[in-house]
């Protein structure tokens, strides 16, 4: 198992005392393999290793008396810095805040919409409405409506009988209500599907939401880099919500998403139930990526 290799290497370095340039090169090579095994994007790993090497040089690690502790600290600090801090969800006081959820098929958007509504009711003590905007998936609106009932949030569907979206109908409707937050759940789409990427741009243009969250599966592999890049170029992504963190993935996609988009990871989904949404924890994710 690769991360044991890293631990063993650090222990043998500890016995050595001072580190040579060769020791550092060998360590960085092992670190690279650990990060790749954790599903961090290949190009992201390249940049990360380069940055760590630079920090080690700046810290004059070869002259250090306790180099292994310093080495470990530098790696963890660099990881945590990239992953960033959790950011609170700020709502517009006295006005409607619109949140648009976008992402790949099956990433967890609809479930996350329910979780966000629960969070907004329970933690922020505000009134949310769930808005269905998925015209493709069978029973998508039903799924969202069920969640709305479960968390006691409002529900509205933009989906017309003919399978198109009635955005004007929604705008008219929402103006006549007193909801604090509208969470709009969109259909899953591939970042390489030009037609669907164009569609989400148009939906975004029509709604002008305050937040656009990219809902991304924590289990994503190398694809996370391309997904982040495509969505980030197509829309003004405000943040990421990482789902299915309760699986056994090491979560390297989190690092790729952060590197490529530069936006904060707001929340992480920790299970299937509506209360399984927590503020992003960079310490937990760095520990998983590096272990």
């Amino acid at each position, binding site marked *: 198992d690769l991360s044991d290799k890293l631990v063993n290497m650090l222990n043998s370095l500890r016995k050595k005392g001072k580190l040579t340039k060769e020791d550092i090169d060998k360590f960085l090579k092992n670190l690279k393999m650990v990060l790749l095994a954790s599903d961090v994007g290949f190009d992201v790993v390249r940049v990360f290793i380069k940055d760590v090497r630079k920090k080690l040089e700046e810290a004059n690690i070869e002259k250090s008396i306790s180099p292994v502790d310093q080495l470990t600290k530098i790696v963890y600090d660099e990881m945590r810095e990239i992953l960033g801090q959790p950011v609170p969800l700020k709502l517009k006081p006295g006005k409607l805040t619109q949140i648009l959820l976008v992402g790949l098929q099956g990433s967890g958007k609809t479930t996350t919409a329910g979780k966000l509504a629960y969070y907004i009711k329970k933690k922020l003590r505000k009134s949310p409405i769930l808005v269905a905007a998925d015209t493709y998936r*069978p029973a998508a609106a039903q*799924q969202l409506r069920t969640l709305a009932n479960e968390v006691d949030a409002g529900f509205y569907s933009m989906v017309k009988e003919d399978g198109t979206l009635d955005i004007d109908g929604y705008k008219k409707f929402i103006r006549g209500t007193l909801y604090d937050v509208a969470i709009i759940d969109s259909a899953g789409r591939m970042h390489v599907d030009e037609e669907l990427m164009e569609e989400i741009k148009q939906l975004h243009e029509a709604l002008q939401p305050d937040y656009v969250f990219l809902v991304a599966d924590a289990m994503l592999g190398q694809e996370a880099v391309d997904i982040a890049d495509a969505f980030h170029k197509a829309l003004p992504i405000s943040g990421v919500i990482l789902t299915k963190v309760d*699986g056994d*993935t090491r979560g390297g996609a989190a690092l790729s998403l952060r590197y490529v988009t530069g936006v904060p990871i707001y929340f992480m989904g920790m299970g299937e139930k509506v209360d399984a949404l927590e503020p992003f924890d960079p310490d937990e994710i760095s520990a998983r990526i590096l272990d």
Partner: protein
Amino acid sequence: FSSIQVMSEDERDELLAFLIKADFGVMLAEELLDIVEEYPPEEREMRLRTLLASYLPPKPEPIKIASEPPTVYYFFGVNGVGKTTTIAKFAHILKKRGKVMVIGADTFRAAATDQLGLWAEKVGVDAHLGERGADPSSVIYTGVEKAKARGYDFVLVDTAGRMSTKKNLIEELKKMERVVKKVVPDAPHESFLVLDATQGQAAFRQAKTFMEAVQVTRIILTKLDSTAKGGFIFSIWKELGLPIAFLSFGQELDDWVEYSPSVILDNLFG
């Protein structure tokens, strides 16, 4: 003399990038590069392609049909990989070969059976759908009993997504496997583990965990219409010997092909 041509660090890193970005995983990528490195530079890419072909499962035996109906197929996997949608595709094909029933045994997720029910309607097959909150094993038991009594040829069982890390959900799947044997002793005749091509190395761990718990006969790989290559299937074949049945390239009923090594290789080198 060609063995003197050592692969440069940059060259090796380029090939490593190619394999890693295809989600091969570090272990297998390094192993493949150690082999390829031994060949002269001008031969390396071709050698890699031949080597990869040898690391793939061959075209598998046709899917098992029961000696007497119904033939029962199980579909399971983690959340959101495409189980329900894949069942719709199977139902669409199998209805030409016999009477098909789909069983909605995802009694947990919101609108799970509604989703399957709508697909069944669209495809034109019958559905036995469990009540939300019911025990999935009893839904399967009643459904398969009904299928046997009414002469259905194929029964496709949809299950709830479950993280392989959740012991109680894995136990639930074991029970679902045991219970059906009371009605049809040889069932399930095929047990499909559905894996999402956009996943990373967790897919391998899922395969391992599910195989340790229940029978897993074949893999179905979905979402190959992304740019993901699903390279983890190479180590799944190498370490776990699990063949692949079906490759899914989209959300529509005919967005799939039967597995063949050339599809994977063309997608990889495409």
